[in-house]
């Protein structure tokens, strides 16, 4: 009869209890912060003189963009840890970071596109460095998934994913420089996505929105990671029982 103390159970790797913030607290914090941010953005922050109500999307656009960068940086950090420590959990964490990064990156493209349409009447602005950079990164990290899904799970998939994630962070500054350089040869700068001048409530609103997005991303990361670890554990269990 299988029991937790039997020899078979000893081979199941422990999911690991670290001193981490419990998930329900995180979820609650996300809810509170996002709601606060929404309230601040739509009701408290002053209306921009030039762009009017539509400029409010900017608070989310920038905070989501920073969050996406943080996810990609986190993915590269976890990838580095995987390569140096060979810890399969680091590979899983890196993957989940990339996943979150792509989700938030998609949101950047969507919010940026909406803002462009409202402000300038066009769904896409090649002149916006931020948008073009995210488009390139979006393509890059989508290829990450294609790479990952065309490999069987194992050390090789983890190795290649980790190396690719590291390439990603090198690509970010290089692409940014390239896009800036390209401006001079492609077309003159006509439209830009400017932020408001910071001060007072605008700063407060932005900071709340930024923290809210970061906490939200971290919560989603923890949820997805927990789900994947549980999958892995179930697989191990079913093998032991088989």
């Amino acid at each position, binding site marked *: 009869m299988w029991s937790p103390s039997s020899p078979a159970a000893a081979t199941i790797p422990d999911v690991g209890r670290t001193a981490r913030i419990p998930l329900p607290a995180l979820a609650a914090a996300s809810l509170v912060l996002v709601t606060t941010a929404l309230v601040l953005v739509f009701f408290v922050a002053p209306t921009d003189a030039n762009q009017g109500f539509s400029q409010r999307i900017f608070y989310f656009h920038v905070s989501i963009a920073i969050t996406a960068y943080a996810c990609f940086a986190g993915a590269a950090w976890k990838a580095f840890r995987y*390569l140096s420590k060979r810890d399969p959990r680091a590979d899983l964490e890196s993957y989940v970071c990339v996943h979150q990064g792509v989700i938030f990156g998609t949101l950047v493209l969507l919010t940026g596109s909406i803002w462009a349409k409202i402000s300038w009447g066009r769904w896409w602005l090649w002149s916006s460095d931020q948008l073009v950079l995210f488009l*390139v*990164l979006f*393509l*890059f990290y*989508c*290829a990450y998934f*294609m*790479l990952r899904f*065309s*490999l069987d799970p194992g*050390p*090789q998939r983890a*190795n*290649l994913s*980790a*190396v*690719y994630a*590291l*390439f990603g962070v*090198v*690509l970010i500054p*290089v*692409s940014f*420089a*390239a*896009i800036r*350089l*390209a401006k*001079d*040869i492609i077309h003159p700068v006509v439209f830009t996505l400017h932020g408001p001048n910071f001060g007072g409530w605008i700063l407060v609103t932005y900071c709340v929105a930024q923290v809210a997005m970061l906490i939200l991303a971290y919560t989603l990361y923890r949820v997805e990671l927990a789900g994947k670890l549980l999958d892995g554990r179930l697989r191990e269990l079913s093998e032991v029982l088989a």
Partner: protein
Amino acid sequence: MSYFRDVGALARKDLLLELRARDTLPAMLLFVASVFVVFHFALPASPSRLATIGLLWVAILFTALLGLGRAFVPEREQRTMDGLVLTPCDRSAIWLAKSLATLAFLAAAEVVALPLYAVFFHPIGGATVAAVVLADIGICAVGTFLGAMAVATRARDLLLPLLFLPLAIPIVVGAVGASVAASPARYLGFLVLYDALFAVVCWASFEYVVAE
């Protein structure tokens, strides 16, 4: 020094293989010529120099992809990568040797492609040639690295362009910029930066690509 001897032995092997097989280089030449003809029909009458320079770089990029897709085929089909990995040579030597060999093929293809372009469309300046040299280095360094990754997957040929194109965008910016801008030095400098940065990253991480 033995590192470079290993690179030499491996590069020699790659060049020998291509000379015997004689399929990649002719394919690249034929491809680039065909692409130029397609451009003629795809562009409106008497296209500007700017438009055709852009297309030149698209042609170079896709011709390179053709060659890069073939780079690790012997190692994959005959499993000889195992043989190379068993030897005490540094893993990065495998990447460097393959990049140099691919660079040689790409350069050979361009020796024909560039004069052909000049004849079909517009003459080429010195800055463009310099850009070709620098861009080739970046294309071969990164492309060979990604080719080794793609070869290990199920999707293989399908995957290489997807992995390569986002990373190739900065190369295109630098190369086209150097070809059309009034002061190409900035763009050429950017290409040097790209080449140096990614060559180091590729060199340092290739061992993880071949490890199982």
